[in-house]
């Protein structure tokens, strides 16, 4: 048999989605980032286009970074004093996108007001020229007051806002529609709910092409296989033509990887598991790079070493795919 006989051909592809807007497009970004477009099982270039390069988003908090493991925080030194400085550092480290998480708006972590949060978003937009992801603090009532203000403050910048969920989507969908932003649709490891959230957003007028799927993320060793299989099933359905699963996929890796004991525990606590200084960033890297094989389009990361090694891994896949493409 000929090896090409094993290639599958697909009728559809992952949506292309662009974040950020240049001055010509009504924003102030120096460049935009386009993701998605894959028309094959991830990285099988002989089947079809592998699509755009997966993007690396680097996480920045406005407050509450005491929750970060010390080994991680010390990598950023003084840069975490305010979100704008931290964002600049993220870009220096190679961020394609800055992922601003407004933890300072959390009732237990400073309870910053919507106006204060909007000012932070403005400050970060002024400090860096890459596209932005803006996450709320995951307290729904608070997010519903904070994020609309932030949408307005970032009007025209074509940011990615998150997240909408099955039970809480109307407020943020309306704001993002009004102010021209994209949306992260979150679902709890459930492919049917992933579709449902997309349907709900679409029913109130939000274009399916402007959504990113966030199927929730698990760290290596903590249920990664659940997420991996959900992503594989979603990719197969998308390539087969299901418009409710053709959205690019985001993996929130850094947050989860640095919750894992294997990432943070000292060598004394985990004898025989290798030095913590190497183990932590490696845990984050592998949590991220493994998802590349299931079709991740955006990886949200934290540790500088993980950012570098993940970027290298993406380079090798992209270059390899170009060499193999028919």
């Amino acid at each position, binding site marked *: 048999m000929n*090896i090409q006989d094993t290639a599958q051909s697909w009728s559809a592809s992952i949506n292309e989605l662009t974040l950020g807007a240049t001055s010509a497009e009504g924003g102030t970004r120096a460049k935009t980032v386009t993701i998605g477009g894959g028309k094959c099982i991830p990285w099988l270039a002989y089947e079809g286009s592998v699509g755009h390069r997966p993007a690396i988003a680097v996480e920045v908090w406005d407050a509450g970074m005491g929750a970060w493991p010390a080994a991680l925080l010390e990598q950023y030194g003084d840069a975490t004093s305010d979100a704008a400085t931290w964002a600049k550092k993220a870009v220096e480290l190679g961020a394609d996108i800055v992922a601003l998480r407004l933890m300072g708006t959390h009732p237990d972590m400073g309870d910053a007001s919507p106006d204060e949060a909007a000012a932070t978003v403005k400050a970060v937009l002024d400090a860096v020229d890459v596209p932005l992801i803006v996450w709320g603090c995951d307290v729904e009532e608070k997010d519903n007051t904070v994020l609309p203000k932030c949408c307005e403050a970032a009007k025209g910048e074509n940011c990615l806002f998150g997240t909408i969920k099955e039970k809480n989507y109307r407020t943020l969908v309306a704001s993002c529609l009004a102010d021209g932003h994209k949306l992260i649709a979150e679902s709890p490891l459930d492919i049917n709910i992933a579709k449902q959230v997309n349907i709900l957003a679409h029913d109130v007028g939000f274009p399916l092409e402007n959504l990113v799927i966030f199927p929730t993320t698990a760290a290596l060793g903590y249920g990664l296989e659940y997420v991996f299989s959900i992503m594989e099933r979603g990719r197969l359905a998308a390539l087969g033509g299901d418009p409710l699963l053709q959205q690019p996929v985001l993996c929130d890796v850094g947050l989860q990887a640095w919750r894992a004991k294997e990432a943070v525990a000292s060598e004394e606590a985990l004898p025989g598991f290798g030095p913590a200084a190497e183990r932590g960033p490696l845990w984050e*890297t592998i949590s991220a790079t493994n998802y590349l094989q299931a079709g991740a389009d955006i990886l949200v990361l934290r540790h500088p070493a993980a950012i570098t090694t993940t970027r290298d891994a993406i380079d090798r896949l992209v270059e390899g795919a170009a060499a193999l493409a028919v």
Partner: protein
Amino acid sequence: MALSGLDIYKHLPKENCKECGLATCLAFAMKVAGGQATLDACPRLDDGAKAALGEASAPPQQLVTIGSGDHAVKIGQETVLFRHDDKFYHPCAVAICVDDTLDGDAMGERCKAIGALSFDRMGTTSAVGLLALHNTSGDVQRFAQAAKAAAVASDKPLVLISPDADALRAAGEATADGRPLLWIKDAVENGDAAIAVAKDLSLPLCLEAPDFDSLAALAEKARDAGLKELVLSPGPVGAAEGLSFLSQSRRAAIEKKFRPMGFPVAMVAMGEDPVETTVDACWYTLKYAGIIVTNLSSPEQLLAVLTTRQDIYTNPQVPVQVEPGLHTIGDPGADAPVLVTTNFALSYYSVESEVESSRIPAYVLAVDTEGTSVLTAWAAEKLTAATITEALTQCGVGGKIDHKKLILPGLVAVLSGSVADESGWEILVGPREASGIVSYLKNQWKP
């Protein structure tokens, strides 16, 4: 043409003798049809039936056993491309590569270090499975001696790698009891001689050649020569190329039933940069490798590869569970804390390992939620005031301690009132994440 279980059953003795290990002939037939058993396992099958069923009943990918006894490693006989369609059956074997140029003492040290690459997490031990000996010296006798030394110093089955069939014969003969895997490099040139060696010594053989067509032709030759247990390898290639080969060969074997590709695939992850090599090894693990030969040596790197393996080979049809009920950590006294979680393995072991880290002896009550996590169980009403109270009463922890305080996971703080009412215990709300347990027990817990 695939046969159904009933097609196969017609040809079986129908005596339900159980000698195949299954209760009935029909059960055996279903296993064979599913690619999870071979006809060889039936000792009473007559020649007529064998001829009638023949190749059509063989699993699409051959099972290969390397080594003997307790440390034997089985790879192959996979049935799907995506684990959600069934599951992955035989976890890929990680082989650490050692040069035959190491002298006796150094070989002993290296084997010891490789033996230490074993990790206990989530109630399971994961370890490096194989030791790959590379004929770096190019010398036949040296290779055979090194193989012997490695077989003495290590209990891992061996993979003997050389481009020289004579070297494979010498080393294979020296260690034949341990049933090593012979691996012939440059098999397009050297394959014929190596096939003869594998046949003479009755050992499994890995054929390494750089392209699909050469490998298919070599596998056909080996099959014609009567070899059954084969492994195929594209040798050292870049990750993108390696991943393509893995997918193509798996699809050819399983979906196209292309017999020459019906064997497990061995990959080589031997880069200069250890992080890059770890990434590659994990990718190969996720995407179908049967063996990974690597030069990785640091524990954290192997831990990452073996954890990726542990994850992807988890059976998606069965939630991983622990025994419901009371678990004891350390030597808890009458004032020890009692923490509630579910019997979902990831939840339970996350809690257990954090309690262990705190060095505070404790009881952990794993409520039977049919293996679902805290939030999922709560949403499905499997973790409720009633189920928690029932588990608490049945486990008898009340008789072992002199307080009545129960620590609930922070994620289900909402249950505090109802559990307190139902059980009559004082309810404390613990952290939302297991990672908060150490600090909670040290700073907030008071009996």
